[in-house]
């Protein structure tokens, strides 16, 4: 039986191309995703849709404003680039819950779903008469996940923060203390002043981290609901999600009063663990525990650095970051990123040290590894044509995630979903359309 090497076995059993014959983990789960202008909600429901949940995207009749969030106003057909990525595997319907008839239809759908996701301002749903207390009456096992950076309750909400606006990624990155630790410190005076400030991640990290925390919380609630029959209300803040994963910053402040700030591409708690200059760009180097620092220094033939900076304490002294790095760069600047990688991979001595290339995203897109593993994949979509998008993240032997389609136009699944869920025929739908309900 053991004819395969481990890596062959792993490939044979988790290759995304073989996923079609396998069951899906969230089979039988229906999710209503009412996200509006927030990729946190959209990412959470994408994760569930890839795992086989039937996700029904509920947009207002004019479409989710998130469809317009795109660089240089670029669209494929009617939709911006970011939304196309997160429209995956979802059925798209329209419904205006701001009018009574829309709310009536929404309440009728509710008993048929297990999960509800929304990203409105705190208490927005409550003010429409669709708060948790009302909804749980209709469906006691419902899991209702509200996502907003200010959360659903608390003094700031009482003061009106988050009211009347979208829930922005940049608010999560700022409010959660994440941006505070990203970027160039003030004393990097070789760079212009306006670049030495708290810096947002280039991607929408607040939305993605918030969405991931929401999906995890929903899954734990689903396991509880399937064991007990009880649903619950979940209040997820992308800002709090980012604050929770900001390494040790929260703990260090409580224990010592030290506020962790920006250190560019260094790491306040470990050295070497940072980017250095190579001949043709930057390279990541790691070797921070004593034996591993020795390994790094032996590769660059600098045992004097081991003597000069022997302990973790010496190396994590911020005053030493730049002098140590200048010494290491005397070596690394002589080689290209590829050459450095090879030197490090060829090291056979004691200790573990790692070198890795820092790439432009255009360079990264060419790496065969992502394409072979379908982390990036070309998909021919019925509505949006041939596109290269993020594909399948998790490889699973039993219930692998699947990318079925990338997106659907606004309201494209109205006929299908309203018929399946509520038995509406075309005539009824046309009437609702004329009234502006769908």
């Amino acid at each position: 039986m053991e004819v395969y090497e481990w890596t062959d076995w792993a490939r044979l059993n988790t290759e995304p191309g073989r996923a079609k014959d396998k069951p899906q983990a969230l089979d039988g789960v229906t999710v209503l995703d009412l996200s509006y202008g927030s990729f946190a909600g959209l990412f959470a429901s994408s994760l569930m849709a890839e795992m086989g949940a039937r996700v029904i995207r509920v947009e207002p009749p004019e479409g989710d404003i998130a469809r317009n969030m795109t660089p240089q106003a670029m669209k494929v057909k009617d939709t911006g680039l970011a939304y196309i990525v997160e429209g995956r595997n979802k059925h798209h319907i329209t419904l205006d819950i701001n009018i009574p008839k829309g709310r009536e239809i929404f309440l009728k759908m509710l008993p048929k779903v297990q999960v509800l996701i929304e990203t409105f301002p705190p208490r927005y749903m409550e003010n429409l008469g669709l708060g948790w207390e009302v909804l749980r009456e209709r469906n006691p096992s419902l899991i209702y996940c509200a996502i907003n950076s200010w959360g659903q309750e608390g003094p700031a909400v009482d003061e009106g923060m988050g009211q009347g606006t979208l829930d922005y990624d940049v608010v999560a990155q700022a409010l959660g203390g994440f941006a505070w630790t990203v970027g160039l410190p003030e004393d990097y005076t070789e760079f212009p002043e306006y670049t030495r400030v708290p810096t947002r991640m280039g991607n929408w990290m607040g939305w993605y981290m918030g969405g991931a925390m929401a999906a995890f919380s929903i899954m734990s609630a689903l396991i509880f609901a399937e064991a007990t029959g009880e649903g619950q209300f979940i209040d997820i803040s992308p800002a709090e999600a980012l604050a929770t994963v900001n390494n040790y910053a929260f703990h260090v402040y409580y224990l010592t009063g030290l506020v962790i700030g920006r250190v560019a591409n260094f790491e306040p708690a470990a050295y070497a663990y940072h980017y250095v200059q190579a001949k043709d760009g930057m390279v990541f180097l790691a070797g921070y525990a004593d034996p591993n620092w020795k390994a790094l220094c032996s590769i660059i033939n600098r045992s004097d650095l081991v003597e000069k900076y022997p302990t973790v304490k010496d190396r994590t002294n911020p005053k030493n970051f730049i002098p140590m790095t200048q010494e290491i760069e005397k070596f690394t600047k002589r080689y290209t990123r590829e050459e450095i990688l090879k030197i490090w991979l060829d090291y056979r001595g004691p200790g573990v040290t790692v070198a890795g290339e820092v790439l432009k995203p255009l360079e990264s897109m060419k790496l065969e590894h992502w394409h072979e593993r379908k982390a990036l994949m070309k998909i021919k979509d019925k509505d949006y044509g041939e596109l290269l998008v993020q594909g399948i993240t998790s490889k699973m032997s039993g219930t692998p995630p699947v990318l079925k389609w990338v997106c659907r136009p606004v309201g494209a699944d109205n006929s299908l979903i309203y018929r399946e869920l509520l038995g509406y025929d075309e005539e009824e739908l046309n009437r609702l359309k004329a009234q502006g309900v769908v």
Partner: protein
Amino acid sequence: MLDAKALEIMAKREALKGIRVLDITRIIYGPWAANLLAVMGAEVIHVEIPGSGDLLIRAVSPGGVFPRGLSPGMMCCNSNKYYLAVDMHKEEGLKIIKELAARCDVIMENFKPGTFDRWGIGYRQLKEINPDIIYVSMQGFGNWGPYWTRPSYDAYAQGITGLAEITGFPDGLAVKAQTWIGDFLSGTLAAFYTLAALRHRNRMGEGQFIDLSQAEVLLRAMDWTWLYQSITGEGRERTGNWDPAVVPSTIAKTKDGFVAIGAFPKKEFQGLCQAMGRADLYEEFRDVEKRQKEYEKVYRPIDEWAAGKTTQEILALSREYSFAAAPVNNSETIHKNPHFNARKMVWKFLDPLWGDLAYPRPWHLSETPGRVRWSMRPVGFDNEHVMIRILGYTQGEVEELYEKGVLGKWDENFPATAPPKDWDGKKGLFY
């Protein structure tokens, strides 16, 4: 220490009660995934090597300082766990791992791909012992594909994907997140996929093998990067704090600090322009597409305006004129923030071993809230609990394993591996 609201949270039920997880992971990615299951009530057994424990994270602290003997690197992703120290290089150590795997629902590991298979405790072998086990392998590049042999760290994943290159200002440096986001985001997704697999097992009785690459998770989180590049053939460049897709949303410098501002829908943009006294800006850029194509012309006036106001003034204006704004917090302002405290996001409690501690708590679930009960523990601190109570070994057998060096405890020569200096030999023990 616990007020009424904290007590209420502690008294609630736990979603993952009865789920047992064997957590043989190191550094952050794996430990965080298992930690998330532990805050939801799973019984997580964290396995380390005797003596140093997980040296690559216990020794991680800013300035190399270990307050009260705690390791900030270790404590942030290892709460609520039971600490077992067993030497897996010994045959008897592997036997203990197999016995635990037989009694667990989930096993998580992030050793080099194929290591556990070679040691006889990989998925292929463990599923013979426990057919419905869920085996989660958390790697830099996954268990197969051209790069499967490459080691990884979060900062490598941020580098090779291009995430660092799209972060920062065009005339500054490309910067990585200081946060080990490649570990934390991937660990959160690993916990999600584990629970999805658990649901499948609950219904169908089947376990499975999960392979999750941290680099691929970061690729996934890079929103419109790949579509943009494949359509235009051009690379995505850094734009500093100016978001080129959601215009405007930015972090701006104020008279006394920094503020985040967002105003994407027409109504919000109009509100912001009114607050700025710039009706003309609204007239010129009411059209979203124009804002996206000429975003510099929108952001410059916002930056100039913000520079003349205090953060509080802008926050007040945001409420008056209905655009979004938020302070740029740091760990101190988060700790002192009444909002986060009232929500018990700042979670203060009495640790059974270390005294008063605080953890962030973002899991507000009405029936099964997430909670931190205890922090990191010394190497091998719960050996007796695990070996005797869970596996049924006798005291004598356990002592024999200590003598053979199969089991072990902390070694004071390694940082942050031991109990507090004034430990009485009993405090904090569950056995």
